[in-house]
């Protein structure tokens, strides 16, 4: 009996030894890329794996951005977190404070390499940097823009090459489109909570104190103030006139736009390829509508970046770094941009795209990019917001929009209610961190 057991044990040890000796470095990669983006991402990962026989990157789809972040937190607490996680811009401050990650700027240092971070597009670099150091790897960056149905514009007697520039024009065009009987509702927002942030940044208004949480942990949100109430009141009026329809969150309203039920959509540029492929009409894109007479800011970066869990072995870290370098390859960056609509993240990729005439061939791929490149980036307000409990605060803002649009609360009351919750969440976050 004893000898049989010893024998078995020896075989087991032998097997596991052999397994370890030949094992690839396995890198688990959690992401939130659904729909048409998923196939594009999987092709990139498969290509990488076939180029690197000693590394296996395993992509795991973990739901929406919100779910991916919260799953990562739960997994980290349970000790089963992946090597790489894709976190949307909302989770940036949470990740910075987490103590659970290694900032990407340190990875080449650990591996004894030098890396020129200047090769990435500046607005992206600025968004994900703390004190000039990049904390997460830029992968899928985007911003919001206006999509519109040119066929609808023609049918309503509007100039298809003159999309609305201001919210007043949105209202004016909207009335015409409804009167002409083309649609019942005119415009919807993808990521409605994010569109609110976009409007504040676009007009150089701060969202939270301490420079939008960029110079220290934010202690309170700046709304409701005159401008944010104006945004809410305008949108509520549009909603009550039937021009604006609240058609759900994230990518929910895309179906209404591509089916022709509405004529305009504010949505991430990352939906561009999906929309161009499904829409059976001529799609136009332009910059976000503005409020006339308000100061100029910039649209803010959205999308997500890649974070690396701390405590990786040297081999794992090297594998992760190889993968990141591969993602930054000009050809890979271009493939990713052309098939999703996300920004080309490196300067070299932009040059090659320009040289081959891509932007002339597909000007819609340039819209959001131009919008962010021409805006200012010298103020905290135009650079974007960093808040610890941002996921919760976005939830409160969505609630406030739903309450204001349905008339349950006045726009100012809805904002004030959300602000009280947001401030409590900010206080709780600082309490938990002991700051």
């Amino acid at each position, binding site marked *: 009996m004893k000898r049989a057991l010893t024998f078995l044990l020896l075989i087991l040890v032998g097997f596991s030894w052999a397994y370890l000796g030949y094992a690839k470095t396995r890198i688990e990669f959690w992401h939130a890329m659904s729909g048409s983006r998923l196939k594009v991402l999987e092709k990139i990962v498969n290509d990488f794996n076939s180029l690197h026989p000693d590394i296996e990157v395993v992509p795991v789809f973990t739901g929406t951005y919100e779910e991916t972040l919260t799953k990562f937190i739960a997994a980290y607490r349970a000790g089963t977190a992946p090597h790489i996680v894709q976190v949307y811009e909302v989770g940036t401050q949470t990740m910075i404070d987490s103590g*659970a990650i290694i900032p990407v700027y340190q990875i080449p240092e650990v591996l004894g390499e030098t890396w020129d971070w200047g090769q990435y597009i500046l607005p992206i670099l600025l968004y994900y940097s703390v004190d000039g150091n990049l904390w997460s790897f830029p992968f899928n960056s985007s911003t919001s823009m206006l999509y519109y149905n040119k066929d609808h514009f023609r049918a309503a007697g509007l100039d298809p090459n003159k999309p609305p520039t201001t919210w007043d024009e949105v209202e004016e065009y909207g009335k015409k489109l409804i009167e002409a009987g083309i649609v019942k509702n005119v415009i919807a927002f993808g990521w409605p909570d994010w569109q609110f942030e976009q409007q504040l940044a676009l007009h150089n208004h701060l969202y939270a104190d301490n420079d939008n949480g960029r110079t220290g942990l934010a202690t309170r949100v700046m709304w409701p103030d005159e401008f944010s109430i104006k945004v809410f009141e305008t949108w509520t009026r549009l909603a009550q006139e039937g021009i604006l329809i*609240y*058609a759900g969150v994230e990518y929910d309203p895309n179906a*209404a736009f591509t089916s022709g039920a509405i004529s305009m959509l504010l949505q991430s540029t990352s939906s561009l390829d999906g929309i161009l492929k499904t829409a059976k009409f001529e799609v136009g894109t332009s910059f976000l509508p503005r409020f006339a007479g308000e100061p100029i800011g910039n649209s803010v970066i959205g999308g997500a970046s890649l974070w690396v869990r701390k405590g990786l072995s040297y081999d794992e870290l090297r594998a992760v770094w190889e993968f990141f370098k591969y993602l930054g390859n000009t050809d890979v960056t271009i493939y990713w941009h052309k098939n999703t609509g996300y920004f080309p993240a490196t300067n070299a990729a932009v040059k090659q795209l320009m040289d081959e005439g891509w932007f002339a061939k597909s000007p819609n791929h340039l819209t959001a990019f131009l919008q962010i490149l021409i805006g200012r980036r010298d103020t905290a307000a135009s650079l974007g917001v960093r808040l610890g409990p941002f996921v919760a605060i976005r939830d409160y803002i969505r609630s406030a929009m*739903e309450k204001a649009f*349905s008339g*349950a609360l006045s726009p100012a009351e809805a904002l004030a209610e959300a602000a009280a919750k947001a401030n409590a969440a900010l206080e709780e*976050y600082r*309490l938990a961190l002991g700051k």
Partner: protein
Amino acid sequence: MEARFPGYRVLPYLLVFPSVAVIIVFLVVPFIQAAIQSFFQTSPFGTTSSFVGVRQYKLLFSDPSYARSLLTSWYFALIVIIGGLSLSLFIAVLVTRRVRGTAFYQIAFIWTYALSPAVAGVIWALLFDPAVGIGTYVFSKLTGIAINYTIQGTTAILVLAAAAIWNMLGYNVCFYIAGLQNVPRELEEAARVDGAGPWRTFWVITFPMLSPTTAFLVFVNTIYAFFQVFGLIDIMTKGGPGGATEILVYKLYRDAFIRVRYNYASAQSVVLFLIVAATAIFQLWVSTRRAVYLR
């Protein structure tokens, strides 16, 4: 019942051990952990933690959205239980009539239970999509009212309740059909001989005879309306609009896993446990005392 394993002192304990162990590992231990967590404030990643006493409970009882969530849960449960059970009983009575194709009707009404709440959620979300849903379209054609469950709180609750009732219909109808088949024909015939009409026969004979089934279904539907609708809510409304469909269990989930307030959610789970335990004890007490059992 009285003869308990004579001569074996350890065996009975050994036999119940596996289920007790499962309960301890999966229910008791996590519950104690949650109870302890509710007295702390922990950072999202759990890296720092400090004792804060009853702060979470104070917050909870002064939080108007929690009071609202509590009300919403009861309101929703009442619609689902009363609406669902009356509809199911009505359908069950119809499909147990001797008509051509009874078997087809019985199966047709039962199959909705074969769908998980998540699938039911997808179907109903498409049906009542504010911009392209056929349900929204038909409803606005019939009544002239434009409904949008993504911004109208009451619409959201009603659409959700309709989906929940539809989802549970098969289960309830199934049990009522079985219950109806067990009502002795002699009693109904005796009533009819005594001159009672079908309406009176139903309320005086059939309905009381069904009370064990009803009691059981009320219990199951309460659990359904409180917990299992989670999938439905997650797919359709995510607790919105403006928290209008955030029933207790969904609020707990969002506070813990979306808003990353684990400690606050732990306090909620302790309170939810007490509420559900009290409800269950009350219902079991009522149903065992009031239901008519044929022996």
